[in-house]
């Protein structure tokens, strides 16, 4: 991928003067590619993606299935490394990190919210939420205390010892949000968070994400194919065929521009 594709987004750093000086880049992608080899054939899922997500920003990554959206999410979640280009998460270049360092980066900087909730079915809400702290080496009592706090923050203070099977889908997704939040990450990465929920629960989950973004300043990256969900974000990055097709931040000239929807 030598040829630079037509890129609607200016090079990173260009929008910088428009931002408050206190803002730092939570995610910085420069010409990121990712290709997969299956025997002789190579499939290029991402063909050179560049964009920046600032601290505390609320961004939706939108695109149809097969657009490279999932690949991008895995990269932003530090679950994978780019084939070429530079991807910095929390200031760390993914290509320079070992598997163990990558795991630690995920643990500290990223909170995941998955479409299918991904809760451990036999563990209580508290134990599920405390999981990221377990891998951070936090002691048991403190872990449970922080997990309980996190559950209270998403309105589940009354469900601490319930197991996922005893909760509704909306509640389960709120447990997952509490889990994403418990480690106080810089970025909350939500992959189709409302995909398995009815509209009422979906709206509730979206409200919580927005509230967390506003009150705690955690950067939210929402990956979805649903334009309605994406429309609630201040900024949309539209991905198609492995490239960024449209980035509203570039159009508005400011990533922090509110009310873009």
């Amino acid at each position, binding site marked *: 991928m030598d040829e630079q594709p037509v890129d609607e987004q200016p090079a990173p750093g260009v929008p910088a003067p428009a931002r408050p000086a206190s803002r730092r880049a939570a995610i910085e992608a420069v010409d990121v590619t990712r290709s997969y080899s299956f025997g002789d054939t190579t499939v290029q899922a991402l063909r050179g993606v560049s964009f920046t997500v600032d601290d505390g920003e609320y961004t939706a990554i939108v695109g149809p299935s097969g657009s490279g959206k999932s690949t991008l999410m895995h990269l932003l979640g530090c679950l994978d490394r780019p084939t070429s280009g530079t991807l910095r998460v929390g200031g760390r270049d993914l290509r320079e990190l070992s*598997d*163990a360092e990558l795991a*630690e980066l995920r*643990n500290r900087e990223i909170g995941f919210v998955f479409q299918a909730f991904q809760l451990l079915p036999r563990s209580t809400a508290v134990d599920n939420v405390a999981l*990221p702290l377990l891998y951070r080496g936090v002691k048991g009592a403190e872990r449970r205390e922080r997990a309980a706090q996190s559950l209270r923050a998403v309105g589940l203070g009354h469900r601490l010892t319930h197991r996922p099977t005893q909760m509704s889908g909306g509640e389960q997704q709120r447990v997952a949000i509490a889990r994403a939040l418990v480690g106080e990450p810089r970025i909350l990465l939500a992959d189709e968070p409302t995909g398995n929920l009815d509209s009422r629960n979906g709206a509730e989950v979206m409200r919580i994400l927005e509230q967390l973004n506003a009150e705690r300043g955690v950067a939210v990256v929402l990956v979805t194919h649903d334009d309605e969900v994406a429309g609630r974000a201040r900024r949309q990055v539209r991905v198609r065929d492995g490239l960024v097709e449209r980035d509203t931040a570039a159009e508005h000239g400011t990533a922090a521009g509110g009310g873009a929807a």
Partner: protein
Amino acid sequence: MKGLEAFRVALDALRGNRLRSLLTTLGIVIGIAAVIVVVSIGAGARQQIESQVEGLGSNLILVVPGQFDTQNLSSNAAAVSTLQRDDGDLLADVVGDPDAVTARLTSGAQVRAGAVEQFVTVQGSDQNLPEVFTRPVAEGQFFTGTDVEARRRVAVLGSRTAETFFPGADPVGRQITVAGTRFQVVGVLAEQGESFGVSQDNEVHVPITVAQRLFGLQRVDAFAVKSPSAAQVPELSRRLWRVLKAEYPDQTFSAVTQTQILGVIGDILGLLTAVLAAIAGISLLVGGVGVSNIMLVSVRERTREIGLRKALGARQRDVLVQFLVEAVLLTSVGGVIGIALGVSGSLLIDGLSPLPASVEWWSPVVAFVVSAAVGVFFGVFPARRAGRLDPVVALRAD
């Protein structure tokens, strides 16, 4: 993730699938229990035999014809080289005490007393037997040197034989028939006890001269020589052997000491125990393969869980440790159950069956270490596979 946390996580996982965990570890349970029982029986047998051989008196020397075979506790070439009763005088000269040597000829015959008839071991002995073998006479008396020389048909019964043929009665002075010949009972030996369910009290002693005639033999099977002290045993056994060798240069004889017999018995039992324990240990191996197999299934079933844990910050090592601890916990629990079964089984066998069994203190310790090691050995492969799962692929699994 700290060791204790890994332990807790593993325990939760195993509890979540109780029945499967139990079935998986059954192979380990059976293997450990079987090895402990076998080792206990081996140790029990050794202790019993050692105490019995020692009970004979540690200064006993057995002189037998032929080369004493240390492989199976017998002498070969007995048919070629033979000992005569007179040779006892040669041996007695060496010891310097005519009462310290006793000849023996062992056979068996149909014995009858009144309506009771049974096949019994018949020992051709001489008057020195009670002294040399330390076998006190309980009733009556042992036959005398005169009885032996005069070929008198007198018999001394083992305590069990006495009970069989004369239940509740005093056999001294009564008649018994040995191989069709009538004998008068003159004494009963004190009880000696059992070895592997075979009583040493179930025999009839008759004068060796009579036994030779009865069975049509000229030879004697062996001489037992009592050394004045345990310290003199090695030297005395060499001298006994040299005297016989000088008398019969073409023949082979052996003078076997207590220590040699004990050593041979120990070797045989050790080998036997090792072979049986190894066979029982195969069950451990099979159990280990079972654990490995179930762990692989578990890793596959829990691919999403592994993917999730990795996404949340678990390193390859964390996942590996989690599954390894799970495997070790599985086999260790199996080991503990197996130890409990093996120890109680050994105690039951010792108490309820004629087999002796003695639980060696180290066998449960070794069993536990082995069961944990089986977990490590058979758990490493599935655990590595779990640790190496790509989180992206693992999260997609259904």
